[in-house]
C-alpha cells in the first residue's frame, strides 16, 4: 500500500512548456508511468516519442485511463486546469504552478470539495513514492531512498533538505508529500497525517511547517487524538519578523497563532518531537526510532 501515488499511478501531465517538459522527462526517467500529455495544438504528436498528446483532459482520460494529473500551466490558467482535471474525474490532481491568485483558489477549493478528486497544492513540489519509483511533481528522484518514514511539508527545497538529512542517518522514505506554501491549498497536513497513520509502509512521520496560519495547530490537535506513530516536526521562520511576507504567500505572521513558537508549543504538547533547529530533523528521527 502507498499514499496517493504508487505502482497504480497512471499520470497525465498538463502544461508542457519549458519547465513542464523538463519535469515530465524527469518523472519518466525516474520510472513514473506517464500515460498522457495535455497541451494545446499538439494532437497526434507524442511526448518523447512515447506518450500521446491531447488537447483536452477529458479526451486524454477517456483514451488512456489516467487516474492522476499534474499541472505545470502558468499561474493565470491554473484554476481552469484544476477544474478541467476534476471534471475529468481524476482521483488525484497535483498543481505545481506558483503564483495562483488567492481569489481563484477560494473558488477552486470549494469546487474540489464537492467532487471525488483530491487536490494537492498549488505551489508545491508534489509527491514521490520511492519504493515503486512513482513521482508526481518535482522532488528530485536522486535524493530519495525507499524506506519507512513519511514526509509531509509546506515547503519545497526544505523538504529536500529534510529528505537528505534522513538519508544521511540511514533512513529511507515511504512517501513524501509537499502540500504547498500558499495560504489556500487543497490537501492539508491533517489529511496527509491521517493517510500516513493508516499506511502500512509508514512507521514514523516528518512534518515540516512554516510560520503563518494555524494549520500546524490543527495538525497538532489531530496528532494528539489520532496519530500513534512518532512524529518529528520543524517549523521554519522562527526568526522572521511579523507582517512581512517571506516568499511564500502563506508565510506571513498575522497574530500570535502564526508564530513559530506557538506552533512548536502546540506540537510539543501533542507529543510531537519538535526540533528547534531545522538542521537536526534527520538526527532527531534517528534518535526517536532508536
Amino acid at each position, binding site marked *: 500500500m502507498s499514499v496517493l501515488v504508487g505502482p497504480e499511478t497512471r499520470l497525465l501531465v498538463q502544461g508542457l512548456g519549458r*519547465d513542464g517538459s523538463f*519535469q515530465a522527462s524527469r518523472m519518466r526517467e525516474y520510472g513514473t508511468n506517464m500515460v498522457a500529455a495535455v497541451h494545446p495544438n499538439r494532437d497526434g504528436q507524442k511526448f518523447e516519442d512515447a506518450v500521446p498528446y491531447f488537447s483536452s483532459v477529458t479526451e486524454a482520460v477517456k483514451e488512456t485511463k489516467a487516474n492522476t494529473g499534474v499541472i505545470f500551466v502558468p499561474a*493565470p490558467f491554473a484554476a481552469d486546469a484544476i477544474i478541467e482535471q476534476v471534471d475529468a474525474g481524476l482521483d488525484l490532481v497535483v498543481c505545481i504552478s506558483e*503564483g*495562483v*491568485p*488567492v*481569489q481563484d483558489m*477560494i*473558488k477552486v*477549493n*470549494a469546487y474540489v470539495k464537492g467532487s471525488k478528486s483530491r487536490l494537492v497544492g498549488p505551489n508545491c*513540489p508534489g509527491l514521490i513514492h520511492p519504493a515503486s519509483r512513482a513521482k508526481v511533481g*518535482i*522532488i*528530485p528522484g*536522486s*535524493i530519495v531512498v525507499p524506506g519507512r518514514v513519511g514526509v509531509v*511539508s509546506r*515547503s*519545497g*527545497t*526544505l523538504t*529536500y*533538505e529534510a529528505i*537528505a*538529512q534522513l538519508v*544521511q542517518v540511514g533512513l529511507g522514505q515511504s512517501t513524501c508529500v509537499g502540500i504547498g*506554501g*500558499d*495560504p*489556500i491549498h487543497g490537501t492539508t497536513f491533517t489529511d496527509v497525517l491521517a493517510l500516513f497513520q493508516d499506511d502500512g509502509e509508514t512507521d514514523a512521520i516528518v512534518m*515540516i511547517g*512554516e*510560520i*503563518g*496560519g494555524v*494549520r500546524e495547530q*490543527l495538525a497538532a490537535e489531530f496528532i494528539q487524538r489520532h496519530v500513534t506513530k512518532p512524529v518529528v516536526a*520543524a517549523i*521554519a*521562520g*522562527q*526568526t*522572521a*519578523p511579523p507582517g*512581512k*511576507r*517571506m*516568499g*511564500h504567500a*502563506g*508565510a506571513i505572521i*498575522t*497574530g*500570535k497563532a502564526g508564530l513559530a513558537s506557538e506552533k512548536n508549543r502546540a506540537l510539543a504538547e501533542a507529543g510531537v518531537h519538535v526540533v528547534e*533547529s*531545522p*538542521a*537536526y530533523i534527520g538526527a532527531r528521527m534517528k534518535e526517536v526510532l532508536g
Partner: protein
Amino acid sequence: MNIHEYQAREILERFGLPVPKAGVASTPAEARAVAEKLGGRVVVKAQVHAGGRGKAGGVKLASSPEEAEQFAAAMLGTNLVTHQTGPQGVPVRKVMVAEATDIADELYLSIIVDGDLGVPVVIASTEGGMDIEEVADKTPEKLFRVAGDPLIGLSPYHARDIAAALGVPASAQRATAALISNLYRVFVENDCSLVEINPLVITRDGGVIALDAKINIEDDALFRHKDLAALYDPEQEDELERRARGSDLAYVKLDGGRVGCMVNGAGLAMATMDITKWAGANPANFLDIGGSAEQERIEEAFRIIVSDSDVEIILVNLFAGIARSDVVAQGIVNAARETGTSLPMVVAMRGTNAEEGRKILSESGLDITAALDLAGAAEVLRDKLAPAGHGKGGSR
C-alpha cells in the same frame, strides 16, 4: 502591492462607498486650490505607504486654504518617518486634501483572506482609530468576525449583523450595511489581500463615512488588473526591495542583521535564517532566488546582497531541484568579481550538478568556505563569526 490612500479612496468611491470629498495635490499651490474648492476646514494628509502618519506629523487639520498650503509645503518633498518606516522614512510626493468630518464615533472595518477557512473574512470592531493588532491582543472580545462564502459572497444579513454589532445608530444602520456589502465587492473584484477602513466614522449628523482607506492588491493577480498595476509607486519601496522586485526575486531586508542570505526556496530560506540565528548572528535579509534561477538573476541577487552595507558575511544555501548548481555558482563568481567584493562566503550546494558548482566556486580564488549541509553551514558560520578570527580576507 500597496497603493496610496487617495487611490484607495477613489476605488471606494467608484464602488459606491461614502468617502469625504477630497483632491490630491503635488504642490502647495494645488493643495490651496483644492482647499478653496472644498471650503471650510480641511485635513492635509501626506501620501505614503506607511501607517502611523498622524503621530509623525503627516496629518494636519487646516482651518483655511492658506494654512492648508503651509502644511502641504511643510510635507511635500520631505521624507516622513513613522514607526512603520525605517529611520530614513519614505518620500512625500503628494498630499491629499479632504473636507474635515465631524466625528461622533470611530469604528474599525477590514477584510482579509483567512487561509485556514479558505474565504475572505470581515473584521469589525467598535475600537476604531486604534492599532487593531493591539485590540486583537488585549480585548479580542471587541473584534467581530464574519466569514464570506466562495459562491454567495457576503449575504446582506451578514452585513446587517455586522452593522448591528458595531452599535451604529438607527439612522446609519442601512447605510453601514450597504457600505459593508460594497466593501466586500471591492475586496473580491479587485483581488485585494487587504482592505481596511480605520476609522469608519459615524458623523455628528448620524451618517457614516469611510474616513481612511488602505488597500493592498495581491501581486499574483495584477496580471488581470492593468489599471491597478499602474498605481505601483516604486519610490515608496526600499531601494534593494525595489531592485529585487524588478528581477522577480523574493527579498525582504531585515533590520539589525549582518549575514546576507541567498537561498532557493522560501521554506529553506527561512530555515537558513533560523540556523544563522542559532550560529549566533542575525540574518540581514530573506532572499529566495526561486526555482528555475537563471544566471542574470543570480548575479542581481548577489549584487543586491553586497549592496547592503549591513552585510559582513554571505551565506549561500542551494538545494537544486529545477535550478542547476553550476549556473548558480557561475553567477556568484561573476557577480563577486564584478562588484570586487571581499566579503567572506559560506556556501552549501546540493542537488542537480552540485559537484560542478562546487568546483567552479573552489577554483574561483574567492574567499569561499564550502559546507556540506544546513548543519555544516551553521557550524562554519559560527566559527567565522567568532570574534577571534574573521577567517582569511575577512576584513574590508
